[in-house]
C-alpha cells in the first residue's frame, strides 16, 4: 500500500480538489471518498454525478465545491454520460491532436441507489462495451439524499424509512456483478483506508477500459451514530469482515492488506460489535443477527475457496 510519505510527495495529492465550505453533513463519509479519489486522479477529469447526496453537498447554484469539471445529471444517466465524455474526448483528440484530450479521464461518481438500482442498466451497458471510464459507487447503504429509504445496497436487518422493521433482503453484491462483466479492474474500498483508495485509483487511472470501484462511505444521520465516529464505523465494517477490501485485476482476485488477515475467522470481530454502534440496527432480533453473521461467514468461505482455486490454477 502507498505510504503516507509517498502521498505527501505527490503535489496533486496534497491539494484539496473538493473545497471546504461545501454542504456535507458533519462526519460525511462521501466527502472522504471524493477527496481521496481526486487526490489520486488530479484535475484532468470530467466527472458526472447522477442524482445523489453529491448533487446537493457541492453547494447551491452558483456556488460549487469541486475544483474540477463536474456535472450533475439525471439519476439513471451516470455511466452513459461518462461514456459520452469519453467519446467526445476521443473525437477531440482526433481533431486537436497533441493537446492532451486523449489523457482526459471520464468518471462517474454515483451513490448506491444510482448504481445498484436505477443506474445498473447503464452501468452494465458501459461495462459490456468496456468504455474507458472509472465508475465509482460511494455506498452509504440507502437513499440518504431523499431521507434514508432502502436501496438494494441496504444490508439485512437495517431500519430505513421504508423498512421500519428492518430490511428482510440482503445487500446486493454489486462488485460481484461487475466482476461478471469481465472488465479489467474491480475494487472495493473503505473510507477508513484512504491510502488504499489512493492506490487503487492510481492503478485504475493507468488501466484502459471500464474500472469499477465501490467505496463504503458511512452516513452518520442515516445510520445513526455520532458524526465523529464515521471513520471508526467504516473501520469496524472492515474488521467484522462485513465489508471486504479486495481488487480484481484482469480477473485475478487479491485481498487488500486490511482484509487479508480476516481469512482467519478468529481475526474478525463479531458482527454484533459493529451492529451495536448504529441506531439503524436498533432492536435487531437475535435471529437476524445470526443470519447476518452466517452471511458474512459464507462470503468469506466462498472467497477463501476462490483464492485457493486461483492459487491452484496459477501453479
Amino acid at each position, binding site marked *: 500500500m502507498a505510504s503516507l510519505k509517498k502521498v505527501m510527495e505527490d503535489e496533486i495529492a496534497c491539494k484539496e480538489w473538493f473545497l471546504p465550505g461545501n454542504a456535507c453533513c458533519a462526519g460525511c463519509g462521501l466527502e472522504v471518498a471524493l477527496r481521496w479519489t481526486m487526490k489520486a486522479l488530479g484535475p484532468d477529469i470530467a466527472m458526472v454525478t447522477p442524482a445523489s447526496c453529491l*448533487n446537493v453537498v457541492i453547494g447551491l*447554484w452558483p456556488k460549487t465545491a469541486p475544483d474540477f469539471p463536474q456535472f450533475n445529471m439525471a439519476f*439513471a444517466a451516470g455511466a*452513459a454520460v461518462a*461514456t459520452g465524455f469519453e467519446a467526445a474526448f476521443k473525437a477531440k483528440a482526433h*481533431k486537436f491532436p497533441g493537446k492532451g484530450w486523449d489523457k482526459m479521464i471520464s468518471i462517474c461518481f454515483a451513490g448506491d441507489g444510482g448504481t445498484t438500482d436505477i443506474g445498473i*442498466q447503464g452501468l452494465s451497458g458501459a461495462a459490456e*462495451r468496456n468504455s474507458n471510464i472509472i465508475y465509482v459507487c460511494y455506498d452509504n447503504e440507502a437513499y440518504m439524499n431523499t431521507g434514508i429509504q432502502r436501496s438494494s445496497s441496504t444490508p439485512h436487518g437495517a431500519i430505513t424509512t421504508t423498512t421500519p422493521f428492518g430490511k428482510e433482503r440482503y445487500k446486493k453484491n454489486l462488485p460481484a456483478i461487475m466482476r461478471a462483466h469481465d472488465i479489467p479492474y474491480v475494487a472495493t474500498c473503505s473510507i477508513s483506508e484512504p491510502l488504499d483508495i489512493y492506490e487503487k485509483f492510481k492503478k485504475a487511472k493507468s488501466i484502459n477500459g471500464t474500472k469499477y470501484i465501490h467505496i463504503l462511505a458511512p452516513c452518520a444521520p442515516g445510520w445513526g451514530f455520532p458524526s465523529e465516529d464515521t471513520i471508526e464505523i467504516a473501520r469496524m465494517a472492515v474488521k467484522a469482515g462485513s465489508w471486504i477490501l479486495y481488487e480484481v485485476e484482469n480477473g485475478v482476485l487479491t485481498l487488500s492488506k486490511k482484509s487479508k488477515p480476516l481469512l482467519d475467522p478468529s481475526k474478525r470481530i463479531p458482527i454484533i460489535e459493529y451492529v451495536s454502534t448504529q441506531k439503524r440496527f436498533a432492536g435487531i432480533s437475535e435471529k437476524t443477527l445470526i443470519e447476518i453473521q452466517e452471511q458474512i461467514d459464507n462470503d468469506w468461505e466462498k472467497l477463501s475457496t476462490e483464492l485457493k482455486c486461483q492459487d491452484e490454477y496459477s501453479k
Partner: protein
Amino acid sequence: MIKPELKDFLQSEEIKIIKGNVAAAYAAKSARVQVISAYPITPQTTVVEKLSEFVDGGLMPGTQYIKVESEHSVLASLVGSSMAGTRTFTATSGQGLFYMYEMVHWTAGVRLPIVMAIASRGPAPPWNIWADFTDVISCRDTGWMSAFTATHQEIYDEILMSYKVCEDYDVLLPKFVAYGGFILSHTSKPVILEDQDKVDNFLPPLPDEKGWPHIWIDPKRPLMHGNLIMPSGFYSEFRMKIHDALIRSKSKIKAVAKEFEKTFGRSYGNGLIQEYRMDGADVAMLNYGDLALQMEEAIDAVREEGYKVGMVKLRHFRPFPVEDIIEVAKKVKVLGVMDRATAFGSPTGGPVSSEVKTALHGTKGTALIFPMINGIGGREVTVEQQKEQLKILIKINETGELPEDLLHGTLWHGKLEVD
C-alpha cells in the same frame, strides 16, 4: 422503367436512390457529426445500420459511435458528448423517444444543439410501428424544436439546416427532424447528396477546442453544471430564456431556409410553412409530413374540377409559426387542419388543430378552423380520400354546415365501418 430524361439525373454521383432513413444517415455524414449514439428500434433501424457502415468502414474519420444498451443511455451519452463540445446525432422512433423522455428535457435544459431524426410511429399498446407523429409531438413542451419532413430529400436537407439553426448562438437548442415511419423511412427515392465542400461552407464550423460558448469541459476552466437552485435563484429566468430562444428561433429558421435555397437551390417555403396553390383559394388544408406531399396531388385534381383549394404544409411544430398561420387563416374562409397524431383530451383531440385554434384566438377575420384526424398508426390515406377531405371543406364553405359524424367537434376521417 426509368424515363429517359431521368437517366442522367439518376446516374449522377451525387444522386442516390435511397431510403429516407439512409438519407438521414447521409445527412449526419455530410454534417461531419463527431459523436453518434444509437439504439435500434423499428422503423429507425436502417439509420443506425447505415451509420455503422460509415463509421466502421472508415468513411467518417474521427467520428465516435457509441452503441448503447437503451434509448435513455442514447441521449444521456450524447448530452455528455455535446457538453464536451462536439457535434452529435442520433435517431429513434416512438417508444424509444418515450424511453429517453427524461433526457429530452435535460438536453434542452443544458441548451445542447443535438439533432435527432425521428422515424415516427404510433405509440403502443397495441404495438404499432407505422407512421404517426404522436411520438415527436409528445415532446411539445420540452424546449426542443421539431420539424416535419415530407420527402426523402427534405429529410437530408432539413437535418443540414437544423445544425445551422441549433448551433446558432441566439438559439442553442436541440431539434427533432421527424418523418413518417415506413412511408418515408423504408421507401426509396432519388436524393441529391450535396458536395462536401458546399455543405462545409453552409454549416457553421465544428466547435473549436474550447467547445460551445455556454458550456465546456476543460480542467483549466473547471465548470459545474446543474447544481440545485433555490426558487429564489435564477431557475425561472433560465426557463424563460429557453422559451424566448425557441420563439426567436423562428426568424433563424426562416433565414437558414432562405440561405439554403440560395446555396442549394431547393425551396422549403419560408422554412416554417410552405404553401401550395394558395393563390385565390377559398378553402385550404393544413397538412404535415408525407401526407402533405400526397395532398398536392389531391389539390391539383380538385382544382382541376374548378374548386379554389390550396394547401399549407406545416414544416415546424416547435417553434409554432403563429404569425404565418394567422396570415394563412386571413386568406381563406375555411381552413381544415389535418392531424396524423393524437392529443387525447385536448380541445380538438388533434395536437396541431388545437395549436392552430390557440394561435388564431383574438384575431378577427380569420377562417373557420375545421379539425380533422387521419392516418393514425399508419392507416393508409389515399389521394381519393384526400380529395374527399377537400370536398368536405368545400361543402362547409358553401353551406356553412359541418358534417354530422364528428367526435367532440373533430372529424376522424377514414374510420373503419363498425356494425
